[in-house]
Structures are given as C-alpha cells and as structure tokens.
C-alpha cells in the first residue's frame, strides 16, 4: 500500500433539473420565450452552464455533496448505495466524463473507466473490429490491443465468429466479447460501475477472477456493485453513499452490514406506529417487507426477478372480519402511478373470515419494472369501506436485469418491460 493516488476533497456535483428536458427545447422556442422575458431567460440560460456553489434554489439537484475520501495505491475500494445515491456520478467525475461543481479531485495515474459494457460497439462491425474500436475508446492504444488481441479473443470464447459482424452474435456473445476487452485493460486506476450485473453467472465469475488478478497486481480499483458478495471478496475497504453524501466508510464488512441494516430499518419498523394513515382501522397493517425468490428480505431486485411483497396485519381485538380487499399501489420515484396490485382483480378473493393476525402475501413472478426506485402505498377495504391506508409503506430499487431471459439488458430509459414476441410474415395482407 503506497500513498494516496486519489484525493477527493469536498466534492460536489449539482445537476439543474430540467437540464435534460432543455435538450428538447427548440431553439425557436427558446428564442420566443427569450423575447417574452429576456432578463429571466438570460439568467436561466447562464445558470444552465454555471452554478454558484451556494446556490440553493429548488431546481437544483445535488447528486453529490461535500464528499471527501482518499484511495491509496493498490487499494480496491467498494462503493455501495441505493439507486440515485450518486455512485455513478462520482465515477463519472473521477473518470473526467463530467466536471465537478465544487471541490476538487487529485488523481495520480492513468484512469480507465468501465461504466457500461461494450461502449462504442457497432452492429455492422465484426467482432475483431469492435475489439479495436471498444479498446481504443476505453483508452488502449492500437499497439496494446495488437499485443493482447489473442488473449482477449481467447478469454471471450467467440474466436470462431471473430470476423462476423456482431449483429449476428447472440446477446450473450456480445457481452462476453465486451467484457473480455474490458478485462484486459491495464491502467493504473480502474473505475467500474455496476457492469457485472449483466452476463451469465459462469462468465461473471470468470470476470471477477480476472479482477482479482488485477487487484493483486497492485492496481487501484474503484468498484460499484450491488453484488455484496463480490464486494466483500474483492474490496478491503468500502464507502457507502446515501443521497449524495458519504454515509459510512471503513472496513467492507462493516459498511455492508450498515447498508443492510439501513435497508432493513427503513422499511420494516415503523409501519405499526405510523400515524399518517387513513381508514376505520378495524384491520391495520403493522409491517411490510419484500422477499426475493430465496425467501430473504431484500429491497433490491433485478428486472425479471420474483418478488414477494408481504403485508403483516392485525385485526382489532374481538372483531371478526371477512371479505377484505387489499391493494398495493406502486409508484415510481417521480411519483408516477405505475400499477395497482389488487387481490380481487386476480380473482384471489379473501371471502371467508380472515385470521385475526397474519400476512397478506403478493407475489410478482417476473418483475416488469425497469431500473429505478419505487415505493408503494398499501390499503385494505372491508365491506364497510376503507379500513387502512398507508402511503410509502415500503420501497425497493430495481437494478438492470435480464427480463426477457435472453442475456440482454433492456434499454433502461423506459419504465415498464413487457413480454412480447416478434415475427416476420411474407404476406402483406
């Protein structure tokens, strides 16, 4: 372990909300509104490009705020945090993709970043050509790729198709090829976002093995992942980000347990004591959590995975209730009502008398939601009307997943994933 090679000092990054939308604004539109209120617009447009460190206006989102830490040479640092915690933003700043808004970062050494698998892959180019394209994009020189080419192809296991355009590859093959290129990067500092979430399990393992090699060669690695196992195997130290600030830093196991605890406390304890509820209260929710396919509680799921939302309830002492209807309303972080899960819609009615305390369990077999954070409201009706309603009874994060079972991670911009099939028919009528 040498001296610090990355020094992050009170780093901050803010995004102006609506900056993304600004793109779709037309120039003509901008001109028109400019004419309507020239001064205000001038200020707005100026603000888009420059931020004042002290600016607190509400259209600003601080993706990172006052983050400071150091990474020593040869250290493998894990970074965890919920969706939107600022992990990717931090990596983007370290790899110079975007500028910080406040603070500074000092980096000693060449940085290669892997924020996505197969950046720059082009469908019409062959495997060989894409290796060169992707390799140079990731910062390798042509010479370096020449030297490692055979090794890369060997590692990927697609040598037979190396001169075929990759549009003829299966998605699994593409992922393998892309990973192989990335696995052969040899920068002094390597920065990796949650890219290992894709690809089949066997190949993932191979990549983790390769990363272990990299780590033992004295390279510095920053590694974002939700695969806690991989983190605890690879990293000696970890940082947990929460809402843009460092929540905990230290020994990996410690940070992981803090992370898990926070997750657990966030969603389980308070439901019984919540007062922001409505309804007659003859039946009340006392707890809610989500389980994965192994029956473990979790708040992080991948698209396509099984998820079981559990609602623990109690019926008021001495009452007997029958004919209840329970529902779970899922909302996205931006408060879009995504869907409603209701037991009477699925025909799973609770007509007879229900146990005086128990758990309502709702299983979603293949989660059709895309990457993002979601929360849910719960409610229960009896024949007499609304009995209990609690907003934000729980929440969960969705990570990219293989929803279609093809090894391919769908476009993450869209909210919903829908099962579908395509075919081509020669008959036009």
């Amino acid at each position, binding site marked *: 372990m040498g001296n610090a090679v990355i020094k992050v000092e009170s780093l901050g990054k803010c995004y102006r909300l609506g900056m993304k939308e600004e793109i779709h604004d037309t120039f003509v539109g901008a001109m028109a509104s400019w004419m309507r209120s020239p001064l205000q617009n001038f200020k707005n447009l100026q603000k*888009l490009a420059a931020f004042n460190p002290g600016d607190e206006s509400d259209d600003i989102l601080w993706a990172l705020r006052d983050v400071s830490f150091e990474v020593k040479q040869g250290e493998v640092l894990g970074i965890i945090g919920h969706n939107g915690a600022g992990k990717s933003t931090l990596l983007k700043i370290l790899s110079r993709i*975007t500028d910080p808004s406040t603070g500074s970062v000092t980096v000693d050494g060449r940085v290669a970043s892997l924020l996505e698998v197969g950046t720059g892959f082009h469908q019409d180019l062959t495997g060989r050509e894409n290796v060169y394209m992707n390799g140079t994009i990731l910062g390798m020189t042509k010479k370096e790729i020449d030297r490692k080419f055979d090794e890369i192809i060997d590692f990927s296991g697609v040598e037979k198709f190396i001169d075929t355009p990759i549009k003829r590859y299966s998605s699994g093959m593409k992922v393998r090829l892309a990973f192989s290129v990335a696995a052969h990067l040899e920068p002094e500092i390597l920065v990796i976002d949650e890219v290992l979430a894709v690809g089949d399990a066997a190949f993932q393992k191979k990549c983790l093995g390769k990363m272990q090699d990299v780590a033992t060669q004295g390279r510095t690695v920053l590694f974002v992942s939700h695969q806690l196992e991989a983190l605890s195997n690879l990293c000696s130290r970890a940082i947990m980000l929460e809402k843009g600030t460092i929540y905990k830093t230290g020994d990996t196991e410690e940070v992981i347990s803090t992370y898990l605890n926070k997750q657990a406390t966030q969603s389980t304890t308070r439901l019984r004591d919540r007062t922001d509820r409505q309804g007659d209260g003859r039946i009340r929710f006392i707890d809610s959590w989500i389980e994965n396919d192994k029956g473990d509680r979790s708040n992080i799921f991948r698209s396509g995975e099984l998820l079981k939302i559990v609602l623990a309830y109690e019926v008021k002492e001495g009452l007997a209730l029958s004919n209840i209807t329970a529902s779970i309303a899922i909302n996205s972080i931006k408060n879009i009502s995504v869907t409603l899960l209701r037991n009477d819609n699925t025909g799973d009615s609770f007509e007879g008398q229900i146990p005086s305390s128990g758990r309502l369990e709702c299983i979603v077999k293949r989660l059709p939601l895309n990457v993002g954070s979601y929360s849910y409201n719960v409610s229960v009706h009896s024949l007499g009307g609304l009995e209990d309603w609690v907003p934000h009874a729980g929440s969960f994060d969705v990570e990219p997943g293989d929803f279609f079972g093809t090894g391919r991670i769908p476009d993450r911009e869209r909210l919903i994933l829908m099962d579908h099939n395509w075919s081509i028919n020669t008959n036009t009528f």
Partner: protein
Amino acid sequence: MAQHRIVLKPRTGMTGINWRELFEYRDLFFFLVWRGIKVRYAQSALGIGWAVVQPVFSMVVYTVILGKLAKIQSDGVPYAVFSFAGLVPWTYFANALTDSSNSLIGNSNLVSKVYFPRMILPLSSVLAKLVDFGIAMLLLFALMVWYGVFPNASIVALPLLILLMMVTAAGLGMWFTAMAIQYRDVSYAMNFIVQLLMYAAPVVYPSSLIPEKYQLFYALNPMVGVIEGFRAALLGTRPMPWDFIGVGSIVALGLLVSGALYFRFKERIFADVA
C-alpha cells in the same frame, strides 16, 4: 507516477486546446474516422458508389434545369463540367458539415460513458468524408477528359483549397455540434442551412454573376474561394482568385479558432445533457 497527475476542479472561463492530449488519443481518432467510413458502406448494395451518386445526380439535374433551360452562363466551359467542378467540393463540404454537426448527438452514448477529448468527434467526421471526396474527384477528372478540358499549372494550389474547405467545415462543424447537443433543432435545421449556404456559393452559377462591388463581401464565404479556385485550377475558367482565397482563409481560420474555443467552453456540459 506524478507525470500523470490531474487535478479535477470546476472549470471557469475559457479553456485552451490540449494538444498533447489530442495527440495521445490519435488511435481513437483514426478508428473513429475508419468506423465512419466503414459503417457507411457496410451493407449497402451500391457501396462506394454512393460517393458519386449524390454529386452526379445533382449535376445532371442542374445541367438540365439551369444549364439547358435557364441557360445560366458557365464561363466558357460546358455547364456539366462547370457545375460538377463546383459540386464536388460543395458535396464534401455539405456532408462534412452535416456529419460533424451531428457528431456529438450521434455519439451521445460515448460522451456520457467515457472520457476522451470531445473534439475528436467533429474532427473525425471532417476527415472521414475525404474518402467520398477523393472518389468524386476521380470522376471529375474523367468528366474533364470526356469534355476535353485540362488542368493548368495553378493546380498546385489544389491542396491548399482542400485544406481551406476542411478548415471551414471543421470550424462551422464545431460551432454547430456544440449548439446542437443543447438545442436539438440545430441538427434538424442542418439540411436547410446547408441548402441556403449552397446558394451563397458559386456552385451552380459562376461568381462573375455577382456585381463587382459585392465580390469581396461575397468572398466572406470561404467556399466561394474554394470553388472558384477549383475551377481556375482544373477548368482554367479564370485566373486563380487569390483575393477570394485570402479573404476566405481569414474567415475560415476565424471560424476554426472561435469554433474550437466555443466547443471547449461548452464541453463541460456535454456529458450532462447528452
């Protein structure tokens, strides 16, 4: 170790161009140029033929409409070869400008996922389009032989003219692409802008149609000097218009420098809006 020390801080004010870094990324630059060429011809039946289709069909249309029907004067050479000598550099310029103006939007996935000097993108478009230009030039020579028109000694100025048209395309391209990533309709308007610019250059008519007193003003468009220069060198319709080329070069250099500075100034928000 310390040779690679980088300090990342909020950027303020103008930023110069980091030549060393551009040089370090030369492999990526050439692969992007190569990809631009390769992808264009992959899976197209006509393949490299597309490089000539555009100028040839324009030439035919303009020859019939402007040369034969409207009888536009063409400085003493057949209208077909006259207009083709203008259309070849113009087609290059139009395509290089359109491509480089779309280069940031078209590669927004790269911009938001990896670091490299962003300027590589518009510049590689400008270089990639030279292949089409080279092919169209061969056709121009063939057409000249067909019509019995031959180049003269001033053909030595041709490389300079080619450089001038590349610099102009690069300068404007950097301006437009840096604007387009924030205002998408700059890219929607590209076709229209290019069309307008075409009539502001002597592509389908001779510059001698422009009244004497406006000629230097007209030459503010660097493509005026380029196209008239092409005709002077290849068709001998006039002496080499050094006055046009001089004015055009100053403007082109101005566009290049201001375009590069504007691009560097805007660069800090590219990844955030891409």
